[in-house]
């Protein structure tokens, strides 16, 4: 663990030092105009933002689902050795995690269907509507991706606890399922907001 800690602190220090030095130099030498956010936003194509949104939607959702499934799955396997009755009931937790990945792929398909071609090469000819389309697709993808990531992790950890509790005392499982349903709802919130953003 010590090696990792040194690596992380080293990289963080190097990163912030670079930013500090570059920023100071730009200020001192009156080169502030080079740091041009407007140029960046208008010169990058809206297609890049749209595709980034699509990829974030599906990939972050899948990361969340995978994380949740492995957390729950390993606990079900461990608990199932001595208490085989928990095997079938606890698959419900895995299904909740999987639902998160399904939200992600649905959103990715919806977003990608909304992307259309446009003509125009300079910022003026591309027009504000196209830029707005790109940004909103990126935003929607980001929303659904991150909310599914955390929803998947949440359901996974609760599911792992549910499996272990069920192995000890069979009557606990149904109550803990309610906790999982609440956890699963936050993924749904992300999907709703993302649809509204598009």
């Amino acid at each position, binding site marked *: 663990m010590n090696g990792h800690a040194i690596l992380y602190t080293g990289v963080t220090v190097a990163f912030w030092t670079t930013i500090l030095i570059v920023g100071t130099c730009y200020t001192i030498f009156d080169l502030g105009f080079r740091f041009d956010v407007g140029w960046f936003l208008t010169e990058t194509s809206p297609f890049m933002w749209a595709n980034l949104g699509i990829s974030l939607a599906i990939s972050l959702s899948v990361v969340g689902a995978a994380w949740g499934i492995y*957390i729950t799955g390993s*606990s079900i396997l*461990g608990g199932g*050795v001595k208490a085989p009755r928990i095997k079938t009931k606890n698959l419900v937790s895995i299904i909740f995690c999987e639902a998160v990945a399904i939200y992600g792929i649905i959103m990715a398909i919806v977003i990608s269907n909304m992307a259309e071609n446009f003509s125009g090469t300079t910022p003026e000819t591309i027009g504000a509507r196209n830029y707005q389309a790109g940004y909103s697709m990126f935003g929607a993808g980001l929303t659904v991706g991150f909310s599914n990531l955390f929803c998947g992790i949440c359901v996974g950890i609760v599911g792992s606890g549910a499996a272990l509790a069920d192995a000890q005392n069979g009557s606990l499982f149904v109550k803990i399922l309610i906790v999982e349903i609440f956890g699963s709802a936050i993924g749904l919130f992300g999907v709703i907001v993302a649809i509204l953003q598009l």
Partner: protein
Amino acid sequence: MSIFPELYFNVDNGYLEGLVRGFKAGILSQGDYLNLVQCESLEDLKLHLQSTDYGNFLANEASPLTVSVIDDKLKEKMVVEFRHMRNQSYEPLASFLDFITYSYMIDNVILLITGTLHQRSISELVPKCHPLGSFEQMEAVNIAQTPEELYNAILVDTPLAAFFQDCISEQDLDEMNIEIIRNTLYKAYLESFYKFCYTLGGTTADTMCPILEFEADRRAFIITINSFGTELSKEDRAKLFPHCGKLYPEGLAQLARADDYEQVKAVADYYPEYKLLFEGAGSNPGDKTLEDRFFEHEEQECRNIVWIAECIAQRHRAKIDNYIPIF
């Protein structure tokens, strides 16, 4: 991201955690012990054990059951479960479980050395060894004629070699009393185990370090009390005390100089925990990590069952309630 340990605990330890919780649920309860105590014969005991988590582990044994057979089968079951856990574990859990086996290995090695010195055959000795502490070169121990050969040929390959190197040289092995060898080895083992738990930090350190400190101090007291009346000199005695307990360094220095039971008691008075010990009967240490808790309980459970079986076999019903309840 050491701030969110739940996120990656299950990668290495999820299966084992579930398994250990299952074992914990299977530990005999007060009700089970009451049932066992009611048994009239060893056959009854076997029947009652079948309905618990132990299942049919005695199923293939021939009809006249003896207590030693039950004892062996219990140990075998525990060893199988322990080996399964050990095979599934990653670092640092693997090292931790290995440390647990080293104390049994030390006992086995001492047993084998003593047996060889008294010219017992190896086939008699090997079944008497505790199975958790077995290592591959156990059979070869009797080939060695002298302790140096023993060390060079065999022990240097085992994990115990590190403990030998710390404290004994080859000449010492020859001259020393076997008990002194055992205590020196155990001291090296305890100290390295303590250092290991300490560097792991976190919950492991919080639970294991007090246990190991207690064990170290307990051994210091016992060595002192047992050495009254023998020709063990005070410097030799001081060399046997493990340094990882609360008594280090002042208490150990005083213990080394003590001459009789009263002085030992005076040393203990400085440490409130040990004062209570000397005043009453022995006590159990507090909480433990999940694996260690399970392991100690399983061992205690084996001992309880064997105690009950012995009492039944010898029809000593009065003492049968002296088992130590776990929950």
